[in-house]
């Protein structure tokens, strides 16, 4: 890794030391909630804890679900588990099963891209193979990142188990990239996702290592800013958007440089259970990278990414994370799951045939198991008067219900975590049919501290209490 390199040529190239960089960053951004971490964990005995930050995480499962196996029986606290959701039984008191919600914006269009695009935005993507790419909205995770998490070590973390799908879909006239993103920085700009667990780990836990900005010294940033300013003057207003995106990202880089020393201090001073977990993950990733067969394994990649996301939230490097188990329309071969012998998308078109429904449900269940494992992981770490999961909102779900019908009604959704004591969990919250899912997203936003009265097509805030 370059950041820790002692190659003299590089140091010469760099031309500056890290101290220069830190001096140049005008003010080191204060990270108040980081500093309270040690205190709040130390006081797990219940003595006047500081209020831990509320985390939000969205886990997206492509291709819908077997509706019959998904639906739980009964409402409220007395509900009975379905086959697909049964892996959540040990976390029963920590989850809210949601039904009756939908995105009106995801009706029509095509089977997949419109549904994926709407999941966290509540809006309809523009039908295009590229020009005027438009999701319609900043996604809910990015609203939190921009309004609340701006000064966190990482404002947000975006992960996916599959690379961005190449090509355009000439059948339906959408660029396939629409099916590869949950998170939109603004309505025109998707957020890049990490697909490699090791790179993601470095981004989160090794500030200043490979790619991170230690070596982006101030003088180079000056050159870049000045060049951009001269270039910008020559452009028409429409064209400036592209350059403004570049400048925004440069500013994000500067913030990371400014935060780097604080980040290092923060990571060094983590409670021992956190640092031990991070060290163990680092070791596991190193071992996995040495074995090409394992590096190819979808299951292993998913599990590693989930662990990176969990620990990033636990260690308070970020408060916002999204993870896609796969892209829209993925035909990932799930033969590694018992009773499954083929691709996910093929099974999702089950035609009501048992020989397809059964493996389809098994694939759904596999995802729910991963989700349950993720929740259990968050619940292992004490924080304040409870666990990290108590101070989280983890949304799991798909962009449509039945994969055979690409049905956008009654989306399969589970919200886990007590949201800092604001969510009455342990129940099945059945909303009237076609209640906007945006009501849920608004509820999430407001709990995270964003002052909004509406989000997309919301008609009010979903009552999670």
């Amino acid at each position, binding site marked *: 890794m*370059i950041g820790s390199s002692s*190659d003299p*040529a*590089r140091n*010469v*190239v760099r*031309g500056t030391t890290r101290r220069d960089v830190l001096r140049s960053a005008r003010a080191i951004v204060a990270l108040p909630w980081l500093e309270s971490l040690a205190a709040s964990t130390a006081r797990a005995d219940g003595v006047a804890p500081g209020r831990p930050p509320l985390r939000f995480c969205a886990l997206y499962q492509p291709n819908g679900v077997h509706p019959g196996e998904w639906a739980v029986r009964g409402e409220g606290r007395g509900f009975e588990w379905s086959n697909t959701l049964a892996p959540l039984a040990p976390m029963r008191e920590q989850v809210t099963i949601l039904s009756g919600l939908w995105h009106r914006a995801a009706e029509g269009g095509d*089977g997949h891209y419109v549904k994926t695009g709407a999941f966290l935005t509540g809006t309809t993507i523009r039908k295009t*193979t*590229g*020009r005027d*790419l438009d999701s319609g909205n900043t996604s809910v995770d990015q609203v939190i990142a921009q309004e609340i998490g701006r000064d966190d070590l990482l404002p947000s973390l975006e992960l996916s188990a*599959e690379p*961005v*799908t*190449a*090509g*355009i879909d*000439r*059948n339906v*006239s959408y*660029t396939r*990239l629409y099916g590869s993103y949950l998170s939109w920085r603004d309505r025109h700009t*998707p*957020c*890049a996702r990490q697909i490699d667990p090791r790179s993601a780990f470095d981004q989160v836990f090794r500030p200043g290592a490979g790619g*991170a*900005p230690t*070596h*982006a010294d101030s*003088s180079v940033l000056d*050159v870049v800013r*000045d*060049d*951009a300013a*001269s*270039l910008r003057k020559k*452009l*028409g207003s429409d*064209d400036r958007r*592209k*350059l403004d*995106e*570049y400048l925004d*990202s440069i500013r994000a*880089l500067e913030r990371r440089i400014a935060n780097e020393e604080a980040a290092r201090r923060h990571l060094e001073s983590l409670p021992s259970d956190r640092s031990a977990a991070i060290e163990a993950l680092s070791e596991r990733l190193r071992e996995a990278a040495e074995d090409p067969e394992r590096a190819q394994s979808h299951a292993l990649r998913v599990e590693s990414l989930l662990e990176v996301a969990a620990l990033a939230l636990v260690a308070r490097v970020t408060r916002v994370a999204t993870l896609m188990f796969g892209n829209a329309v993925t*035909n*990932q*071969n799930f*033969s590694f799951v018992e009773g499954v*012998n*083929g691709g996910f998308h*093929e*099974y999702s*078109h*089950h*035609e009501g045939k048992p*020989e397809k429904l059964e493996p389809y449900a098994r694939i759904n269940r596999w995802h729910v198991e991963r989700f349950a494992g993720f929740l259990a992981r968050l619940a292992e770490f004490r924080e304040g008067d409870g666990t990290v999961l108590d101070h989280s909102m983890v949304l799991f779900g798909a962009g449509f219900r039945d994969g055979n*019908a*690409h049905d956008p009604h009654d989306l399969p959704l589970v919200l886990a975590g007590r949201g800092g004591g604001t969510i009455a969990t342990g129940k099945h919250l059945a909303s009237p049919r076609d209640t906007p899912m945006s009501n849920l997203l608004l509820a999430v936003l407001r709990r995270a501290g964003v002052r909004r009265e509406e989000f997309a097509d919301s008609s009010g805030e979903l009552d999670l209490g």
Partner: protein
Amino acid sequence: MQRRPRFIIAIAILAPAAGANDRFATTVRPIVERYCFECHAGASAKAEIDLRRFDTETSVRAEAALWVEVERRIAKSEMPPRSHPQPTQNERSAVTEWIDRAVRRDGVRRPGRTPPRRISHAEWRNTVRDVLGVKDDLTREFPRDGSGGSGFDNVADTLFAPPLLIERWFDAAEKAAAAAPEAFIVGALGPDSGADRAAAAAAIARLAMRLYRRPAHAEELSRLLSERDRAAEQGASSSDAIRAAIRAMLVSPNFLYRVERDRPGFVEWPIDDLELATRLAAFLWSSSPDERLLELAIAGRLTEPEVLRAEAIRLLDDPRSISLAEEFAAQWLGIRRLIDASEPDRGRFPTYTGSLRSAMIDEARLFFDAVLREGRPVLELVDSTFTFVNEELAAHYGIAGIRGESMRRVVLTNPQRGGVVTLGAVLTLTSYPLRTSPVNRGRFVLDEILDDPPPPPPPSVAFLPADETPGDGLSTRARLERHRADPSCAGCHSRMDPLGFALEEFDAIGRFRDRIDGVLIDASGELVSGEHFVGAPGLRRLLVRERGEEFVHGFVARLLGFALARGLEPGDALAVEEIVSAAGGKDARLRDLVLAITESYPFLRRGSAHYGESP
């Protein structure tokens, strides 16, 4: 009949005012009303194509792409469907000729607008290779880009600069600056180098010209020079101080963004010499212009037609034009999906190894490059008598006598294989983990060879069993034939499936077979228009003989989209026809088509706005 139109954006153009002279209103619309409105009118119009909305020539021209499609379907007698009343031949030609004249030909030749474009990862990699001599691929950790326009990852609209990429750029810039061989730095410093600041300034100016694709301005140079001075003051050697300036250049927006000049007050104009040099190098090398191109451009000579032609030939003859195979062809054929998405079941197909997959990818690349480099007819992409294999791939194909890991050219004596459709890579990436998909393969042929992508499937579309021989004994073919008995499926599947049946003699990883579970394969099929064929050889022969023109037009449209790094617009339709005819029609050599693109109207010009956005 809903289908993505051949050109993406509907446009408004200058058109006469509607009235009694509106030929559309007086002549064309009544015919359309009589034969099309039964299905294509109003809110519930089939495939959401509502033709009743159009009542004037202007309104038609405003959605030219749709009407180009209408013209095509009517001309090919695909619409109205045979089960419906048919227009007379005169009525048919009245409609198609009017559309052809009014929408495709008259005054719709307009160069598109090219917004500032982030360079693609390939352009980053190849430029750093060409200018700095860095052979390692430092872009591997860059976040993957999506595709736009005609399906390529070089389109401004779908290229972004997220914070993650900025970090990777900084990291890669440092690595590249450090990894550049000393000879390149010393070379840039020039013969009378040394620690002299003037020599350093000259070296930086030379490198900046290459990396910025134009001479750098004075203030840009002074910024770079101060980077160099700063390193020198800290004790860096003269060449290491240059490296500090290189690093700054590699993260400057002047390198990372390709910007073409606006001309306020003009609707369209020829691009200048430097812009042309940049377009040429991006198209033919996925890189930046070399010194010679820049010199010619600065001298104002590149836009001279004979100089342009000579330079385009020089670039094509250079080994770096392999990028057309690596970038254009690989993306056109969807080769990346072989790595990302299609994963044959390893238990069922133990011979499908990582090295076999690499050989398949190499085969596709070498085959396309050979057709280009050897001046072969573009139709050899559809049907050829040679390919490239190594020992493993040869064994996979049943070709004897090939030893070793290196790829080499072989003459195909078995007529089964030849052309892109029977590439191992394509046959595999159109299959599912455990079985072939005649539907996917048929769709591939329709989309990539016949330029006629089928409409989207209905939301509740059925899939076949995951395996080829499920318990009930019905073959894939039998199942699909049963499926086509459903009239709502037949419209599209009767176009896709028969094409795929012809390829059933290749299994899910592209091996030849003549039977499935002991039952001989029926590889016969027919086009909607009635022509019969048997097996891959029959299909290819038919495609070349009867559908060569469609292929060449569709192929050129893709290639032009790649060359322009944008989606095509109706204003490019005429250019496609001109390119094809300039290069010799359907018998054109691939190489001549590429050259004709470099001389085409939209390649040499730029417009002020997308059609229809502002008059």
